[in-house]
């Protein structure tokens, strides 16, 4: 099973990165999704539903933005630790 890191830096790509993460999980890929710097810009029903689905599919989601941790249940991670985690991934997909 391939391990993929989806790393989302552009605030306007947050939903696309989540969709791609879910698509990979559905095809038996291990996925870690990292939302860098920005708070989730549009926590609408679509994002929220897909985020719950990602959790159910045992995808992992991390952020170095504390608001995402406190409001939306992301695991907190520093940028240095993101570097260490994505180093272990087979593929890194930037958004």
């Amino acid at each position: 099973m391939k391990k993929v890191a989806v790393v989302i830096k552009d605030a306007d790509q947050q939903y696309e990165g989540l969709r791609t993460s879910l698509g990979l999980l559905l095809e038996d890929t291990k996925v870690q999704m990292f939302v860098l710097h920005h708070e989730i810009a549009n926590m609408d029903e679509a994002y929220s539903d897909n985020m719950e689905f990602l959790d159910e599919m045992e995808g992992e989601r991390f952020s170095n933005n504390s608001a995402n941790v406190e409001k939306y249940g992301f695991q907190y991670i520093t940028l240095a630790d993101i570097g260490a985690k994505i180093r272990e991934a087979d593929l890194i997909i930037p958004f």
Partner: protein
Amino acid sequence: MADTLGILVNTDRYLDYVVKLTQAAHSKGKTVQIFFTGKGVLLTQKPDFKKLVGKAKLAICDVSFRSNGLHGREDEVPGVGFKDFATQARNAEMVANVDRYVVF
């Protein structure tokens, strides 16, 4: 079997790179697959998109195509048949099957 290169296109900023890399890979006998998603689907409307036809297997995220206001223009996209307007599963298959995977 030839080496296979997968390309995920998730922005509309780098069509020039996608075309040049695809042309180079094709000329070196590589098999190329490209999946356009998110704002990347907007590149289907650019004149240079047709330079990819015949050099790569092309697929488009149908949800992105619709959400970017392009529904109804599917048959205007060169080199992409109806069945190649696909879900994110197509990208996941590409991840699973290609030898190398790049993102533009």
